[in-house]
Every structure is written in C-alpha cells, then in structure tokens.
C-alpha cells in the first residue's frame, strides 16, 4: 500500500457520500428515500461484520444481536428521556458492552471457531425469543413498553441535540445515515492502518504465530469485536429511525443476510460488503415485487453460487478479472 492511496480512497468515498446526500433527496420520492436510508443503515451493519469477520477472522453468526440491541436501546432510551440526544450514546454503548461481555467469555475462554458460531447464534436466539415474549403491560422499561411480537411502533425519530420538539425530516435522517456510513468507513480504514489493525490482520493470518511474537491475541480480538458491536448498534439506531424496532431485527433471517452481504461483496474488503448490502437489498426488494418467485430462493441460490464459484466474493474476483495490475495488497 503506497502512502498516496489512502487519502485518495477516503476522498473518493467522501465524494460519493456527499453526492448521494445532495442528489438523491431531489431525485427519489419519499418512500424510495426512506428505503434508501434503510439500505444505508444495513450497509453500516455489513461494514461492522466486514471488520469483525473479514479482518478479525471471527465468524460471528450473531451480528444481528447487536443490531437489534442498538435499535431497542435507542427506542427505549429515547422514549424515556423524551429527547434523542442521549439515546444515541446509549444505542452505541449497550451493544458494545454486551459485545465486551460475550467476547470476554469467548476469547478468554479460548473457544474455537465452530463453537464460537454456536454461541453467537445462541445469544441471538435467546434475545429473539425473549423480546418476542415481552407482550403485555408488565414488560416495560420505564415509560417504554417492549411490545413483544409487535415491537415498538412509536419509535421516535432523531431530533437535533437538545431540541426534542422538532423531529428531523426524512431527508435529514438520510443525510445522517450516509454521513454515519462514511464515518464508520473512515474509522475502519484508519483502524486497519494503525498498529492495532495490523496486529488484527496478523492474528487472522496466523493466530499461533502472532501469539508467539508476544501479542495478547485475546485482547486484540476482544477489541475488534467490541468495535464491531458498537458499529452494529449504530446501524440498529439508524434502522430504527426509518422503520421501527421489532423482534425481527434479532431473527435468523437478518443474521444470515449480513453474512451473505459480506460473503458476496468480498471477505477481507470494506467496500465490497457495503456494495453487497445495497445491491442485494435492491435485488430482494425487486424480487419481492415478482409474484411468482420467492426472494429467499434467490438469496439462497446467490449464496450457494457465491461459495461455489467465487469464494472470495464479488469485489476481489472482479479486481482479478479486470486486470492483473493490482495484485499484491488487493482492494480494501
């Protein structure tokens, strides 16, 4: 990686983001704009798993757990405070704390790959089952009823800090979502450039060797896992702002989809999963309008084909196809 590439990539990403903010609200109708906001929020989620799995090498089947926790803690905090200013740090902090606790159990317990998959999947299921069963008046946190299967339909939209009377319009929410995605991307880039990120990648490549070189593998893995959890929480917050929170956020369907986005987009890249999330969501929405074809069939077939035909994902495969001049280092 040459010194000039990082600033160019960051500038390009910022350009795309600001172009989207300036152009899309004028081009799209309101419904399409809200849909676009959903896709951007899910792209943040894809980015979080791209960090944890693609660079940290931790296959987490439960990224949806942090996504759902972020959404729920945002909704509960916003309803209780009556102002979303402090709900934002809560929505990022709670998933990060849960990720820290879970990560501590897994990494300091030296639990291996498959078992880690089982545990993260289990946590997601526990949350899904629990939240699903919280219908009725006895299940409320402060002023916020959890609502069981129906979720919290009255999730308040973001307002400007300290000004709870004025919820932001959808155009603002869209802009905030895009800027959040950009910030997360830049953060991820900087993390990977820093010493911390290099050690993370070294651990992914060869855990035993990194350990013998004196790095505390457990602490590094815990670190990237917590960052991923916080990012997924932010994504849940954004998602809650354009839809509303419901137990489906914790469902297997979401945890599965996130993995598909990252896998199809390109494991070990950052842009790939973001593009993968947006493209596959467009595809699912489009497939949902076809009466005779079930979207699950398409998604499933794509995943099977992706694993069989291009196990490295769309972006790296494209890069190899387009020319051999960018071999070493690859696209990140």
């Amino acid at each position, binding site marked *: 990686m040459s010194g000039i590439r990082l600033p160019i990539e960051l500038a390009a990403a910022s350009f795309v983001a600001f172009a989207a903010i300036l152009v899309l609200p004028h081009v799209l109708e309101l419904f399409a704009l809200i849909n676009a906001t959903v896709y951007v929020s899910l792209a943040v989620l894809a980015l979080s798993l791209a960090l944890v799995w693609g660079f940290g090498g931790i296959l987490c089947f439960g990224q949806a757990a942090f996504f759902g926790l972020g959404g729920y803690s945002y909704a509960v905090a916003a309803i209780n405070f009556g102002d979303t200013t402090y709900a934002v740090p809560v929505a990022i902090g709670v998933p990060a704390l849960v990720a820290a606790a879970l990560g501590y159990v897994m990494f300091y*317990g*030296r639990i291996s790959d*498959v*078992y880690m998959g089982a545990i993260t*999947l289990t946590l997601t299921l526990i949350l899904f089952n*629990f939240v699903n069963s919280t219908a009725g008046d006895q299940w409320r946190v402060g002023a916020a009823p959890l609502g069981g299967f129906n979720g919290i339909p009255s999730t308040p939209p973001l307002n400007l800090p300290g000004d709870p009377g004025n919820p932001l319009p959808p155009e603002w929410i869209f802009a905030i979502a895009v800027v959040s995605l950009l910030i997360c991307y830049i953060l991820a880039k900087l993390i990977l450039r820093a010493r911390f990120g290099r050690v993370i990648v070294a651990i992914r490549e060869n855990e035993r060797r990194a350990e013998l070189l004196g790095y505390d593998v457990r602490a590094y893995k815990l670190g990237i896992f917590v960052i991923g959890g916080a990012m997924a929480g932010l994504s849940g917050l954004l998602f809650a702002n354009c839809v509303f929170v419901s137990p489906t956020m914790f469902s297997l369907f979401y945890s599965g989809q996130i993995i598909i986005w990252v896998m199809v987009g390109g494991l070990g890249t950052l842009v790939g999963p973001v593009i993968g999330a947006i493209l596959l969501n467009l595809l699912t929405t489009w497939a949902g309008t076809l009466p005779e074809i079930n979207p699950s*069939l398409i998604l499933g077939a794509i*995943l099977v084909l992706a694993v069989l035909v291009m196990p490295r994902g769309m972006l790296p495969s494209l890069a190899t196809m387009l020319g051999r001049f960018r071999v070493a280092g690859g696209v990140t």
Partner: protein
Amino acid sequence: MDIVFAVGLQVLSGVATLLITSLGLAIIFGMMRVINLAHGEFLMLGAYAAILSARAGLNIWIAMLVVAPLVVGGIGLVIERLIIRRLYGRMVDTMLATWGLSLALIGAVTMIFGNTVAGFSAPLGSFAIGSFTASAYALFLIAAAIVLFGGIWALLRFTPAGLIARGTMQNAEMASALGVSPDRVYAVTFAAGSAVSGLAGALIAPFSGVVPTMGAAFIAKSFITVITGGAAMLAGTFSASGLLGTVATLGTFATTPVFGEVMMLVVAIVLLRLLPQGITGRFFRRSL
C-alpha cells in the same frame, strides 16, 4: 405421585424430540466434519413428504416411517453430489453454502405449497395417568428415539459397513490406502444422515405443524445440541440432548415455554465456556 409420572413423561418426550431432531445433523457432523445448516429444511422436507403421501392415500405409518426417509435421503444424495462434495475440508464454506441452501429450500417450498400450515393429528389417542392425560404419541416418540439411536449405534458398532465408516472417520487416507473409497463413504453417510433427518421431520410433524419455515425452530436447537455434545457423535448427542432437553422441559414447567428455551440456551453457553470441546471433549472420550 401422578404428577411425577406426568412430568417425567414430558421430560422424556422432550429429550426424545431433541435427540431425534439432532441425530441427522450429528451423523453428518461427526462423520464428515460438515455442519449442515440446511438440516432444519431436511426436517421440513421429511414432514412434507409424509403429509403429501398420506394425503395421496398411503397408510400414515408407511408415509412417516418409509417414504419420508427415502425421499429426503435421495435429496441428500443429490445435494452431496452437487454442493457438499466440492467443499470438503472447508468447514466455514460448507456452513455458508448449506445456509444458502436452507434459504433456497424455504423459498422453493413456499412457492410450491404456499405459506400455510398443514398438519395431521397425532395418530395415537391419549391415555390417563391418574388424573392427568398424556398423548400416547409421546410414548411412541420415546420408543422411536430409543430404536433409532440403538439402531445407529448397532450399525456402527457391529456391522462391516459400520467398521468401514468408523475407519474412514478416523483416518480417511489410511482407509483409502486399504481400498475403501472415502468419497463413497461420505456420499452414503450424507444420504444416511439426510434420511434420518427426513424421518425425524415426519415424526415431529404431528405436533409441530408443517410450514416451509418450520426448520428454523429446530436447526438452532439441534446445532447447539450437537456442538455441546462434542466430538463423539452418538455419546455426545445422547448426553447433550438428555441434559438440554431436561432443562428445557423443566424450565417450561416452572415458567413459560419461551423461558424454558432461554434457560436451555443459557445452560448450553455456560457449558461451552466450561468445556470448550463439548461434553465428550472431557467425558466419554473413547465412545462412539
């Protein structure tokens, strides 16, 4: 006294259900180190095979005990050829591919049969324990679990085919040097595991209802049972489903079905923290 029997029967049938629905996954994982995340959909296909052939006028017992395993075993054979065979030794890729397969199967079945619940009632009536009534089907389920488990154990332990299968499991290269074709052993194993899943799907259909998405309720529980069990597939699955099934059923009695399940999952997490290689990583190590 009656309540002890009634609860005892519930616990046993809970354990039996967990054991039956996990065995197919356990066989495939234990023998081939392949985690089949489409396992839940194999159960679903078994249930559909049984219900469709029963509706076509076949005797319900034949539909459940013969047609379902044959159909799903056949499907398993095809899937092994098309997908699994290309991914041997790549555990995570296999997991992802079978997950995709699971989504695709749900989608395909929804397109063909619609997203409605079909079902048939448990074929045996009920009987009384003192002042409680229990379903006779629960007894049948327990018996079926014992026969199925015993049958697989005996097959692996006493027959030449079982010996070849165990040998390939322990050291595929050595088995290959001795004239066994590991590819064929794997294909047969995958088909057999699928057939067991299909049978399990037909057996649970009377009380779970038959919908395209029914597999999701079982895949996670079976997955966790098999993983908690650890490397020795039969002893592991047996002990894990005994433990987790008991916890889930007693938890259900004490609170609600949801919290029964939550308790079971929490126990599984704690257990994996204490025994990172599963139950048989520490106990019963030398068993099958």
